[in-house]
C-alpha cells in the first residue's frame, strides 16, 4: 500500500513548484469556466485534497501512538524526590499532546467526511518514512533523541539558531535522515481547501455534519481549544485543549486546519509577538516538547526518567513493509521473509499474550471509532441517538484499556530469562484491515467477534500469568484481567442488543 501512496508523493514537491497557474496547462473546461490551477497527475483537486487529508490522518495517528508510547515509558521512581513531580508533569504534558493529536485526527476525519470521502484511520506499521512524513515511525521511550524528533516535527518554519541546529542534528542522527515539519502538509491542505477554484463550494457537503464528530461528543470536559491570548496569564498547560471541529463550510474547514497548525507550531502566537517562535507553551506542541527537552537535559540522571523499554516491540518478527530501514533475511519453515532489524519481538511467555491482547484492544478502539463516524448523530433535540453515543463511550473505554495493558507491558520483560533487561512495551500493531462491514448487523457481528476474541486472549494471558514465576505484577494483572473479562461479558450482552436492533432494521429493509 505504501508504494501506492509514495508514487504520488515522490514528485509532490517538484510538482507543487511547477504547478503555478501561469505555467500550468489549461485545465479541462469541465472543472471550471475560469482558468484553473492544474491538479497533480491522476487527480482532481477534490480527490487530491482527500489524498492529502488521508496522509494527514495517518501522520496524526502515527504521532499520537508514538507520543503515547513515550509517555507510557516515563517512570521517574528512581529519581530524587524533588525531580519526580517534574517528570510526572512531563508525562501529563505528553499525554495531553497525544490527546490533542487525537483531536487533530478526528477533525481531519470530519474534513474527509465533509468532502464526501470515507474516514481513514489506517496507518502503516513501522518502519517506513517518506518525504511528507515528519520522521521514521519508531516507537521509542522518552529520551533526548525521541524528543528531538518530536520537536522538529512540530517546529515552525523559520526556527533557527544554535538550539535549533543542535536539536535538528540530534533528530537527523536518530532518524537517519532529516525530520520534516508536519506544518507543511497542513499549509498545503489549507491552501488547496481555501481556493474556490480548486475546491468548489459544491464539493463541500454541509449535510454530512451529523456524521462528523463534535467537541460536545469528544471533549470530555477538557478545554476547548482557544487561540492564545497575550493576557499575561499562564494557564496550566498540562491539561489538553481539544480541537474537534465540525465543518460545514469552507471557512470552517480552513479555520480548523489553521487551528491544528497553530496548536502544533504556534505560528500565530509567534506572529502576534506574544513570544518566541513556537508560540506560548500552553498552545504549541513545539514549545511543550522544547520545554521538556530542556528539562530533561537539566535532570540529574536523564537515563532514569524512562523505563528501559525495547524500541518497536512487536508480537512477530516477520514484516511486510514498504521501505524497511534495515533488513535481513529470516529463514523459517514457511518461507523467507524480510525482517526489520530495529524491531524487538516480545517473546516472554507472559508479555507475549498480553501484547496480543493489547493489539486486539487497539483494533477494537479503531473499529469503534470508525463505526462511530459511520453512524449519524441526530439534529432533532427530541431524539436521543444512543447508538452513536454508546460507540463513543466504547471508544473511550478502549483508550483506558490500552492505557492499562500498556502499564502492565512496560513492567514485563521482553524476553524470557535474564538475557535482556529490556521491558516489553505496547506494540501498537495495526490490524489486518479496518474496513467496516457495509451492513449494520454485520458491524455488530464484528464487535461480537472482537469481544469473543478478547475473552480467549484474556484466558491465554491468565494461564501465562498463573504459571509464571518472578513476575511482580501478577496480582494487579490478574485483577485487571478479571475485570476486563467481566466488562467483555457485559459488553457482549450490549452487543446482543445492537444485533437485535439492527435485525429489526433489516426486517424492514433498511440497511445502514
Amino acid at each position, binding site marked *: 500500500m505504501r508504494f501506492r501512496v509514495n508514487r504520488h508523493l515522490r514528485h509532490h514537491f517538484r510538482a507543487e513548484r511547477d504547478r503555478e497557474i501561469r505555467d500550468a496547462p489549461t485545465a479541462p473546461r469541465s472543472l471550471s469556466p475560469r482558468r484553473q490551477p492544474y491538479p497533480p497527475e491522476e487527480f482532481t483537486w477534490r480527490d487530491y485534497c482527500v489524498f492529502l487529508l488521508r496522509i494527514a490522518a495517518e501522520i496524526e495517528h502515527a504521532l499520537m501512538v508514538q507520543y503515547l508510547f513515550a509517555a507510557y515509558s516515563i517512570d521517574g521512581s528512581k529519581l530524587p524526590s524533588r525531580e519526580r513531580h517534574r517528570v510526572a508533569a512531563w508525562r501529563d504534558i505528553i499525554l495531553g499532546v497525544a490527546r490533542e493529536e487525537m483531536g487533530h485526527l478526528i477533525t481531519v476525519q470530519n474534513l474527509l467526511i465533509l468532502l464526501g470521502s470515507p474516514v481513514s484511520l489506517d496507518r502503516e506499521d513501522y518502519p517506513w518514512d517518506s518525504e511528507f512524513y515528519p520522521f521514521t515511525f519508531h516507537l521509542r521511550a522518552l529520551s533526548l533523541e525521541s524528543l528531538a524528533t518530536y520537536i522538529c516535527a512540530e517546529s515552525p518554519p523559520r526556527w533557527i539558531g544554535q538550539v535549533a541546529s543542535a536539536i535538528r542534528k540530534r533528530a537527523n542522527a536518530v532518524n537517519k535522515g532529516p525530520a520534516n515539519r508536519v506544518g507543511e502538509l497542513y499549509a498545503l491542505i489549507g491552501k488547496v481547501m481555501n481556493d474556490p477554484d480548486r475546491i468548489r463550494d459544491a464539493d463541500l457537503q454541509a449535510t454530512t455534519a451529523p456524521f462528523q464528530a463534535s467537541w460536545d461528543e469528544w471533549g470530555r470536559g477538557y478545554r476547548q481549544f482557544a487561540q492564545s491570548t497575550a493576557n499575561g496569564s499562564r494557564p496550566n498547560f498540562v491539561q489538553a485543549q481539544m480541537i474537534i471541529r465540525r465543518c460545514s463550510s469552507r471557512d470552517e474547514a480552513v479555520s480548523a486546519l489553521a487551528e491544528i497548525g497553530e496548536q502544533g507550531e504556534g505560528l500565530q502566537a509567534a506572529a502576534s509577538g506574544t513570544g518566541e517562535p513556537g508560540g506560548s507553551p500552553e498552545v504549541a506542541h513545539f514549545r511543550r516538547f522544547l520545554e521538556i527537552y530542556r528539562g530533561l537535559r537539566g535532570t540529574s540522571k536523564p537515563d532514569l526518567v524512562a523505563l528501559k523499554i525495547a524500541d518497536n516491540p512487536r508480537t512477530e518478527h516477520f514484516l511486510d513493509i514498504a521501505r524497511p530501514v534495515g533488513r535481513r533475511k529470516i529463514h523459517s519453515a514457511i518461507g523467507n521473509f524480510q525482517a526489520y532489524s530495529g524491531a524487538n519481538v516480545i517473546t516472554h511467555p507472559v508479555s507475549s499474550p498480553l501484547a496480543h491482547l493489547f493489539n486486539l484492544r487497539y483494533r477494537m478502539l479503531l473499529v469503534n471509532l470508525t463505526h462511530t463516524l459511520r453512524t449519524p448523530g441526530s439534529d432533532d433535540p427530541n431524539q*436521543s441517538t444512543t447508538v452513536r453515543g454508546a460507540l463513543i463511550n466504547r471508544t473511550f473505554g478502549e483508550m483506558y484499556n490500552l492505557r*492499562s495493558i500498556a502499564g502492565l507491558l512496560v513492567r514485563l520483560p521482553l524476553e524470557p530469562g535474564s538475557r535482556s533487561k529490556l521491558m516489553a512495551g505496547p506494540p501498537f500493531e495495526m490490524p489486518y484491515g479496518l474496513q467496516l462491514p457495509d451492513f449494520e448487523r454485520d458491524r455488530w457481528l464484528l464487535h461480537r467477534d472482537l469481544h469473543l476474541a478478547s475473552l480467549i486472549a484474556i484466558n491465554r494471558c491468565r494461564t501465562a500469568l498463573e504459571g509464571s514465576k518472578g513476575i511482580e505484577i501478577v496480582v494487579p494483572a490478574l485483577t485487571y484481567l478479571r475485570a*476486563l473479562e467481566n466488562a467483555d461479558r457485559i459488553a457482549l450482552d450490549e452487543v446482543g442488543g445492537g444485533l437485535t436492533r439492527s435485525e429489526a432494521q433489516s426486517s424492514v429493509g433498511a440497511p445502514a
Partner: protein
Amino acid sequence: MTIRGIRILPPLAIGRLGAAATPMDNYEVVKDQRKPLGYRHLRPAETFDVDISSGRILSTFTPSWVQFKDGPKVRPIAPFLEVWAVVSRDRMEPLTLDVLERSGLTPADLRWRVHVANHKVFRRTGDWHDKVEAFAPEPEPDLRLEVLRGKPKSIPRNKGSDPTFPTFSDHKVHQLLGRSPNFWAGRSIRLGSVQYIDPTKEFPQIRLRFTPAGGYVYGSSWEKPPPGRPDDPNLHEIVYRGRRGGWLGYTEPSSVEGVAKLTAPSTIYAGESIDGNATSKGYLDDECDGIVYAVLNSPSGPFPPAYARIGAGPPAYAPDSFPVRTVADELEQALLGTSVGIDQVSAESAEEIIRRAFETIRLMNTELMNGNPAVGGLAANNMVVQDNRDTGRASEPIMDPSLVNNSSLAHLHEAILASLLSGTAPWFTGVLRRYDQIGDLSDRGRRKMPAFMRGADGRYMTLTRRQIDLIEKVASRNLNGS
C-alpha cells in the same frame, strides 16, 4: 486495672427507619472477587439475638441470608452503642461486668439519658414551639420547655449527672416520644426507642441499643382530629395543630431576611401550589438525631459523662451500592483535614471512590438528569432546570444527549474502574470539579465530574477536597503504579 473514664463507641451511630418488629440482622458489604465490576455482595454476619422483654442478649447467630423486610414492613437498623473504659492515656477496654466488678461497681451504676429531636419544621418556621423533642427519661415540664426555648443558662451541659435531668439504668424499652407545644394534646411522634442491654456472663459488655422509628408520615389539621386513621393515605396520624402553629399552609418567605434563611434549594417540602406559592401540607416525619449520655458513678463520685450522637435516616434501598460522596467523607475531612497523608494514599482508596461513582451512575436515570428532551429532561427536577431557575441560564442538556445512555455510561465507568484495578494511576484529575467550580455553568464547567448531581450548596456536586487530594496524590505517583 483502674477505670479512668468512659467513652461511648462509636461516637456517631446512624440507624435506619423501619416498622418491622425485628431489627435488621448484621451483614457485610464485600466486593465480588470473581466479578470485579459486579454488584457488591451482602454477606450475612454475626448478629445478637436480643430478648426485648428482658433486655438481654440471648445468643448470637449468623443468618443464612440477608432479609430487609418482614412482610411489607422494613426492618429497622438498630445500632448498639458500647461503653468503653479508659484505662490509661492511650488505651481503652470494653466496659464489662468483670471490669465493673473489679472497680466495685455494678451495671446499675451506669446510667443513661437520651435526648433526640426533629427540627425540620422549626428550621423553616423559626418558631421554637415547632421543635419536636423526645427524652428518655422524660424531664420535668419546665425543664423540657427550657430546652425547647434554647436557654443555655439553665441547661446543664456536659453534666449528665445533674439531678435536673433524670437518668435510667433499667433494661426496659424507653420510647422516645417526640412532643411539641404545637401538637394536639396527647399527640406525639414516636422517634424510636432505646434500651440498656442487660449484661450477662455470656455477653458481659455494657451496651445501649437505639431502635429508630417506623418511617411514618404525620400530619396537621385545622380542627381537632377524630380518632382513627386519617383520611389522607400518606398519614399515620395527625399530630400538628394547624391553628396554633404556622406549618400547615406555610409558604417560603420573600423578605430579604427570610430569603437569607431559606434552605438551598428551597421549597423541598410536601406542598401544593396555591396562588403560585408552594404551600405546605403540614407533613412531619419521624426522623431524628440527638445525643446519648452515659454516666458512671463511683464511690468517689461520677466520672465525667460520655456521650455519642445518634440519628435515623431512611432505609437503604440500594444496600449494595454507596454514594460517591457520603457523610463519612465529610466527617473524615472535618476530622483529618483536606490533605491526605502520604501513608494513607493507596490505589485501592482511589479505586473505591471511582467504584462508588460507578455505582451511583447505575442508580441514576442519566438521560433524565442530563436534561435530554426526549425523556422530558427539560422539565424535570434536575440540575438543568435548577440552573435555569436559579440563574436564568439557557435550559439545555448538560452532556451531548447521545452520550448519556445509562448502560453506555456504566460501560465507560467499568473501563475506568478496570483500568484502576490494573494499577494504572488515575488520569482524569483534570475533569474533576473543584470546590470553587460548583457554580461554573459553562458547558465545560457543567460537564465536570461528578456529573448531574446537586451538592449541599444547591449547586453542582463536587468530591470533597480530601477525596480530590487523594486521587491527585495517587495520580502523581509514577504512571506504572509502582
